[in-house]
């Protein structure tokens, strides 16, 4: 069934013609062309489709598009300003925390949500925050290092 949804995506009000069966992930990728959000497992296990809903990380594949009106969604396209990388993206580049890159958008958003709430997390808190994001390349070490570098010395001292 077609439905017109009014949503806030990356700070912009959007009116999108969607299907009631669409997930938020379908809405972002197929209706709005925001393909930075990736689909991995499609059932909430891998975290590649992580976006922020009202600032909290969620799996876009587990949310119906129809649930989105009234909520504010931030995708990977919304974290960099004027083409400049977000500090987390820059740190992932510098620390080699991205290899194939498929998990990276989800990791960036999960880490952003953590740092927005807790600017100086411990390594344990970083690992907990990204536990819902699978990475099959890096072994996580470099991702944790990158997030710790942005977070400042607290976590870096702990991991030394």
């Amino acid at each position, binding site marked *: 069934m077609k439905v017109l949804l009014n949503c806030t995506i990356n700070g912009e009000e959007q009116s999108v013609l969607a299907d009631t069966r669409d997930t938020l992930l379908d809405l972002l990728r197929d209706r709005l062309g925001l393909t930075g959000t990736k689909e991995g497992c499609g059932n909430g296990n891998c975290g590649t489709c*992580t976006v922020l809903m009202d600032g909290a990380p969620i*799996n876009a594949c*587990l*949310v*119906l598009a*129809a*649930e989105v009106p009234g909520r504010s969604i931030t995708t990977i396209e919304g974290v960099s300003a004027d083409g400049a990388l977000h500090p987390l993206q820059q740190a992932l580049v510098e620390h080699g925390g991205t290899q194939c890159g498929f998990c990276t958008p989800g990791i960036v958003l999960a880490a952003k949500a953590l740092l927005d709430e807790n600017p100086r997390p411990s390594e344990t808190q970083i690992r907990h925050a990204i536990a819902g994001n699978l990475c099959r390349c890096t072994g996580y070490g470099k991702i944790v290092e990158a997030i710790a570098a942005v977070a400042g010395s607290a976590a870096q001292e702990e991991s030394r």
Partner: protein
Amino acid sequence: MQDFIYERPTTIGEAIAAMHADDARALAGGTDLVPQLREGRRRAAHIVDLKHIPQMTEVTVLPDGGVQIGAAVTAAAVARHPAIVADFPAVAESAQLIGGVQVQNRASLGGNICNAAPSADGVPALICHGAQVLIAGPDGTREMPVEAIFAAPGRTTLAAGELLTAIRLPPVAPNSAAAYRRFTPRREMDIAIVGAAAWLRLGADGLITDARVALASVAPTPIRAPAAEKKLLGERPTGGLFEEAGRLAAQDARPISDTRGSAVYRATLVTVLVARALADCGRRFGFEVAVA
């Protein structure tokens, strides 16, 4: 996926009316329901979103000191609510074991119950705290102990058109403590091979006056372990007693063998986890008890 009508009631009455339709399904966090619909494991012609009903999305501290948790309150909100963290830490800790952060931000405690997975991490601590589930339906409201809602894997005892509206935790008994332990191959984002919760109340003489032990993933539904509970009554809390209670709990369990673990392995895990959950209770009372 079959097409459906999405409804967004704002009162429990409207939700009950919407649930009256054929093939209506309640939606809270959607972390179980959405993939079940997409993979064709469940059908729905009406999706009734409960997240716009204030009573179902609020945690309320009751006048008697108990806490009522709306069925659609997220695991993340349960884990960080000050009254739950202070008085029911085993419930708060259990909520933090359900999926990863992304899932906890959506999954509800009510959904964790109504999905009726034998492995539901949210449930054993609720059983140990004597939680009641509040149910509303076309014929009015009723309540029952949380363990009475489970019928079989994936099936509840709710009648057609009924909704779980809230979970009520009775006030904490003086000199009592609870804890939940689970075993998973991966520390996070995994399903319990076995989960075990324990609750103890001590008398002024230090002897156990009341005990509850609840198990997950070792029967078609979450269960109590009556033999273990009976053994604990009237005894002094020691490591030997806790280990004996673990052994008896393993006899109360009715595990199956599946891809996560064999029945024998699960029974062994029950022995260990029950003893450790009891030792965790001891730690909450302020004493160390060594168990295997």
